[in-house]
């Protein structure tokens, strides 16, 4: 393997490391929330990271066919977000729920 | 826009039917589709189609530039140890009024620096935009009006 090839392997390693870290950080946001839209946003972000991850794995293994999965993710990944958005919207009138959901996050801590 | 999409669809159909999904074949299909659209120009009004393509390309390039810039700014903001944020939502008065144009504008705004389209008012006169730095809403409004909105109007009118 020549130098550029070694660089590529190194780059893959770095990229995968960064992506792994990104995954974990985003998962933390899913866990801590605090509100439902925050979690949904983080889930959406996971999909975004996954697309990159797939691309890097495709490069690493040479099996570019993984790209199709990325395309599908790009297309449908946002379906979940749409569904949740729709859900959040439909709960608009349940003010109580939202209050509980947001209590002590934007209100207490930050202000 | 609609015509171009139809053109793309025609191209895709071509690739499917011809059984080889390769870029040259797609481009060939696209050209065939364009020709087909040209044949029916009187019914669908595709006259300015090719001229407009140039302006669309220019819009796309602007967008790409803005996207990179935007990502860079987010990076700086996020990585700065003390984030100094003045976020807020401002109402942007729309000049464009077609659904397609509003949508395009909103999406471009979302993908570019510090702004994010939240909603369009019911009367379609305002676009509500969330800005990460909303200390000067007028400045932001001006940027949009001079930038994307103007380009969109150039490209699609």
């Amino acid at each position: 393997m020549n130098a550029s090839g070694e660089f590529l392997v190194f780059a893959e390693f770095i990229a995968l490391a960064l992506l792994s870290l990104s995954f974990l950080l985003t998962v933390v946001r899913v866990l801590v929330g605090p509100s439902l839209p925050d979690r949904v946003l983080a889930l959406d972000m996971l999909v975004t990271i996954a697309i990159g991850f797939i691309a890097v794995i495709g490069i690493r293994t040479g099996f570019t066919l993984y790209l199709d999965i990325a395309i599908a993710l790009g297309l449908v990944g946002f379906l979940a977000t749409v569904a949740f958005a729709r859900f959040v919207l439909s709960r608009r009138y349940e003010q109580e729920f939202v209050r509980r959901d947001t209590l002590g996050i934007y209100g207490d801590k930050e202000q | 826009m609609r015509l171009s999409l139809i053109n793309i669809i025609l191209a895709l159909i071509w690739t499917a039917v011809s059984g080889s999904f390769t870029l040259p074949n797609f481009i060939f299909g696209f050209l065939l589709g364009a020709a087909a659209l040209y044949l029916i120009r009187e019914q669908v009004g595709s006259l300015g189609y090719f001229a407009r393509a140039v302006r669309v390309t220019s819009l796309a390039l602007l967008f790409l530039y803005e996207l990179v810039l935007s990502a860079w700014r987010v990076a700086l903001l996020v990585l700065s140890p003390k984030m100094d944020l003045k976020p807020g939502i401002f109402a942007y008065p729309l000049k464009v009024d077609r659904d397609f144009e509003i949508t395009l504008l909103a999406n471009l705004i979302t993908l570019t620096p510090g702004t994010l389209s939240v909603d369009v008012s019911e009367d379609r006169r305002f676009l509500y935009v969330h800005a990460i730095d909303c200390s000067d809403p007028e400045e932001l409004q001006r940027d949009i009006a001079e930038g994307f909105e103007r380009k969109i109007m150039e490209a699609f009118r």
Partner: protein
Amino acid sequence: MEVALSFVVSVFFAVAIYLMLSKHIIRILLGVSIFGNAVNLSIFTAGRLMREVPPIIPEALPTPEVATASPLPQALVLTAIVISFSLFAFLLVLAFRAYQELGTDDTDGMRVAEPEGEPMPPLGY
């Protein structure tokens, strides 16, 4: 790799079962979904693992030139995913309809088919 997967599968099973043991129908359904994943991973692992090489024959060759991941378990898992998804969707809507009709999503409260305090059958003749 099978070892790691076996461990992961254990946790999947355990979590799925823990959820299914609760009294809330939605939690049970989440458990069902995870249960399905656990089984799918089991099938996949049981067919032995192979890193990264998909069972797809290169365009130029009649058969794969290198060892690929085992295709059969993948096909089995695919079938199983589809089936468990269908069942999951059904269960979900069923739970929702049950909630509508019964007014509860707590299985302790779902006592219509087998109500509490039913009388004994007649003791005479």
